[in-house]
């Protein structure tokens, strides 16, 4: 049995890992190291209710001081890990060498930036509490013109929040239809219309050429020559897993730290959350997810893996699930969809503001999309867990439709 477990990364996956170790009866030392100044907090509201100004940062906390005492864990902020040595079981924390018996890698991902924009005031990404606080402040100062670069889920949520606050906002998206690489064109168009109907301007099928401005952002120049004036630019062009600190460790890094199907990276080392790429037995391939539910569940699974023998270890093979709130719509997707899948709206229609759609390929149900249809999403998610065929999914849709 290990006597000390170090968790690197103090966000959702790391916190859930610590909780799982204690609830499973682990009595040794647990260190939870985070590189931010804030103790673990919940990220989904950062682009939604927190950004809109309805919430205090205390409400985001994932770990109160009572909880830290109850769990008897050592929590350290502003603590950056580096130089992992898997042979000697050591790592450096802010340059000081520390030992561990077992390690949980949960360093998450960071927002991808546009090159050469670091020194321009008013250009932001949105990932951390500090990012959200800065953007929230800018939303409230004067009447800023906002350009969102990237029409993915974060970009769409930020645009919706800005629009709710009465701010003029434009989304620039390189695809012809936002979100079509995830949801396909038909469903992507529904989200586009939701935004344009609420006053968000969409500029699609065009790349950003340059962010204009020396010390303060002035605008966004597009490749078609359009210049969009901007006081505030929010860049939502995806995330990059935080694996740089593992580069000389000998662990396999391929867009995430690679794990086996049980979340094991190497003996006594596991990974969880946005940083982890693992072999998903159900899909027969390795995947990496950036979803809230996955961080929570994988954090727990990976932690328990450290307490198990190889024979006891279970594969981690969930049906992925996430949600996004935009305007008055709750958008939920369960499963893994591909733009090449067949897509069929099976209950209601996009015109009604709520519907359920399913994705399938090779005779299998692959994913379900619900717009204000949480009940159906969960019902189809259960079908996927039972490996339902496309026909079974259509039959079920007739029953509930």
């Amino acid at each position, binding site marked *: 049995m290990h006597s000390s477990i170090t968790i690197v990364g103090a966000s959702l996956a790391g916190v859930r890992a610590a909780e799982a170790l204690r609830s499973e009866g682990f009595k040794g030392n647990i260190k939870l190291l985070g590189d931010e100044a804030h103790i673990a907090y919940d990220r989904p509201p950062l682009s939604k209710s927190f950004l809109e100004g309805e919430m205090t940062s205390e409400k985001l906390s994932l770990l109160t001081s009572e909880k830290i005492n109850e769990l008897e864990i050592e929590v350290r902020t502003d603590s950056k890990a580096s130089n992992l040595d898997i042979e000697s079981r050591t790592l450096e924390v802010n340059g000081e060498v520390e030992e561990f018996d077992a390690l949980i890698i949960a360093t998450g991902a960071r927002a991808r930036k546009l090159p050469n924009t670091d020194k321009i005031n008013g250009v932001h990404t949105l990932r951390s509490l500090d990012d959200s606080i800065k953007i929230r402040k800018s939303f409230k100062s004067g009447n800023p013109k906002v350009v969102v670069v990237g029409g993915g889920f974060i970009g769409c949520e930020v645009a919706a929040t800005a629009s709710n606050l009465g701010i003029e906002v434009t989304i620039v998206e390189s695809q012809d239809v936002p979100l079509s690489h995830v949801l396909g064109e038909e469903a992507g168009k529904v989200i586009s219309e939701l935004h344009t109907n609420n006053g968000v301007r969409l500029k699609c099928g065009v790349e950003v050429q340059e962010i204009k401005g020396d010390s303060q952002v002035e605008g966004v120049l597009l490749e078609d020559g359009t210049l969009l004036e901007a006081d505030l630019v929010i860049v939502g062009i995806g995330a990059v897993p935080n694996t740089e600190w593992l580069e000389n460790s000998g662990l396999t890094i391929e867009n995430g730290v690679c794990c086996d199907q049980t979340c094991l990276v190497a003996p006594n080392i596991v990974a969880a959350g946005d940083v982890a790429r693992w072999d998903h037995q159900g899909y027969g391939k390795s995947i990496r997810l950036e979803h809230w*539910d996955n961080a929570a569940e994988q954090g727990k699974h990976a932690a328990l893996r450290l307490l198990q023998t190889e024979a006891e270890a279970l594969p981690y093979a969930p049906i992925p699930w996430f949600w996004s709130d935009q305007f008055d719509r*709750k958008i939920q997707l369960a499963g893994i969809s591909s733009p090449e899948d067949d897509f069929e709206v099976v209950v209601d229609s996009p015109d009604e503001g709520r519907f359920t759609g399913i994705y399938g390929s090779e005779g299998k149900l692959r994913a379900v999309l619900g717009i204000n249809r*949480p*009940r159906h999403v*969960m019902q189809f998610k259960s079908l996927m867990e039972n490996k339902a065929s496309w026909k079974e999914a259509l039959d079920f849709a007739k029953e509930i439709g």
Partner: protein
Amino acid sequence: MRVVVDFDLCESNAICMQIAPDIFEVRDDDFLYILDETPSEDRRSNLEESVQRCPKQAISIEE
């Protein structure tokens, strides 16, 4: 044990319904209904999973 839902927090994500359909139901009106407020002890592990996986942390258990 008693199931408590903070309905000011609940956003009807319905993840609880999938984990414990005998306790939680999100109906066609998009609201969450508690079907069994005092489930028997053998439902504890599913109930605890519902508490943990609720994205709004709106569910709690009173002993």
